[in-house]
């Protein structure tokens, strides 16, 4: 009987550890919600979500989050222009063309690319890519959206490539053989059979990539500047939601002030955006798995 009670206690204890993850999610939502609620008592929701000026640290503060959102979306869009086609093409090469030996070498190298700390990518963007781009676009400022966008794309590329490749490799061999038997080339098979068959898996990878780009912090904090600006011009300094949180955290804004609460309000918006994207991605992946199992 004694061992049975012990077993019961152990199982409960293990359950508590597993449930900690739910507590983490709850904690995130609670912390963000409480401070956001306080923030919204002083700043109307409409002003926050539709205002076009973000100057919370000025003498006459304005709390329109759109410039930060626009900055985030511009950098993310540039990153996607790099990461999605390149990631997908790499995945097609690795899944449909590459000999085993090549795959064995390339995949770990891509893993290294994915494992480089983001602060290092930030240095790379500021010190290497920006000067390089300035030779092509002399009007480009030292801080801008283009350089961090491109570097972020390179950073996310391995994620897109490996998840897309997984999805394509899960497509049954019979489908490929069917296409080859009809005289299709490898390109036709890859583009007309394999990619469409793996479509929901690839889309899931793409959405996860967008979510990563939106939440990425250090590259933009280092190379994009700190000037909230509602613009589509990739050559001028701007500020993203994440970079703003870093900027305020670096100063000594006293807790409990409105400025302090802004980072939680921006964080809440960021959390909702990425969480929504993650849910869609998970749902698509589940659907993909159901089709091929």
């Amino acid at each position: 009987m004694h061992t049975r009670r012990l077993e019961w206690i152990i199982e409960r204890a293990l359950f508590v550890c597993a449930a900690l993850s739910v507590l983490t999610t709850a904690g995130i939502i609670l912390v963000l919600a409480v401070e956001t609620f306080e923030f919204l008592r002083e700043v109307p929701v409409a002003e926050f979500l539709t205002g076009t000026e973000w100057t919370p640290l000025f003498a006459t503060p304005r709390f329109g989050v759109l410039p930060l959102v626009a900055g985030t979306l511009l950098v993310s869009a540039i990153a996607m222009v790099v990461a999605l086609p390149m990631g997908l093409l790499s995945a097609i090469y690795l899944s449909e063309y590459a000999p085993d030996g090549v795959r064995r070498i390339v995949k770990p190298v891509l893993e290294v690319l994915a494992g480089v700390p983001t602060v290092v990518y930030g240095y790379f963007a500021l010190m290497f890519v920006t000067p390089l781009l300035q030779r092509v676009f002399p009007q480009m400022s030292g801080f801008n959206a283009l350089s961090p966008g491109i570097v972020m794309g390179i950073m996310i590329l391995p994620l897109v490539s490996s998840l897309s490749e997984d999805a394509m490799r899960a497509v049954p061999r019979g489908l490929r053989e069917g296409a080859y038997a009809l005289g299709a080339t490898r390109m036709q098979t890859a583009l007309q059979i394999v990619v469409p068959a793996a479509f929901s898996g690839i889309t899931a990878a793409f959405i996860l990539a967008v979510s990563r780009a939106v939440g990425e912090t250090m590259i933009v904090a280092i190379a994009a500047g700190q000037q909230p600006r509602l613009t589509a011009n990739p050559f001028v300094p701007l500020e993203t939601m994440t970079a703003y949180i870093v900027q305020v955290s670096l100063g000594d804004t006293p807790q409990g002030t409105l400025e302090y609460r802004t980072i939680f309000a921006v964080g809440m918006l960021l959390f909702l955006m990425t969480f929504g994207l993650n849910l869609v991605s998970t749902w698509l992946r589940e659907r993909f798995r159901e089709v091929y199992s």
Partner: protein
Amino acid sequence: MKHRADALFRTVALGTLLLALAALGALVYDIVSGGIGRLNWQFLTSMASRRPEDAGIYHALAGSIWVIVLTGALALPLGVAAAVYLEEYGGRSRVARLIEINIANLAAVPSIIYGLLGLGVFVRVMGMGRSVLAGACTLALLALPVVILSTREALRTVPGSIREGSYALGATKWQTIWYQVLPMALPGILTGLILSLSRAIGETAPLITIGALTYIPFAPDGPWSPFTVLPIQIFNWVSRPQAAFKENAAAGILVLMALLLLMNLIAVFLRDRFQRQGRT
């Protein structure tokens, strides 16, 4: 014609891949050429300074090691316990499924959000202040999803026959897990832990958010000490306009990358041992 298109497509696809690898090459070249000149014994043993030529990385290296060791000490037991529950006990219950979905989603939450969580919960509500411990707790939560996922994979590689053999001798479920399953899965678990810690050691944003200091001229002396870490020191140097600090940043990156390389080598070594053990 058909074949020309195919060959062209293949070349383009391969070219893209090579371009990505070339970017990695450029990154490595840029950092090595920028920082190797600054990397010497003085740099490794000195603290932060306002003069770039006197500044060093020692305090940040010590801070990173403090934080990462504590993070590992927190994430390992919690992550393994959670994984054991989900893999060995939870089964297909609805609660277990809910926890699984939750963990998958947590793995994709931006790290800076964890920083806000740490700021709200550890620094303020739990009163840890801007300490090594608060940083480690924050990074432990960040690392947990990966530790749990990799531990579950390691547990899954333990053959069912080992479990049955143990049960048939009158072992309880926990005895079976503790004496047979966990020891066999240990190398795999540690590999996953080290890989997740090597990601955590490069994290900057969550620690800036909880208020780790960017200028701090001493090494931490305990869990309650204020601290800085390598990536934050690098960020601090990158943000200075003087070229000499940029050189320090590159040298700091070299130190950080060396630390990462070391951790990855340990992980590869463990994985290799694990696989050899599985084969016999």
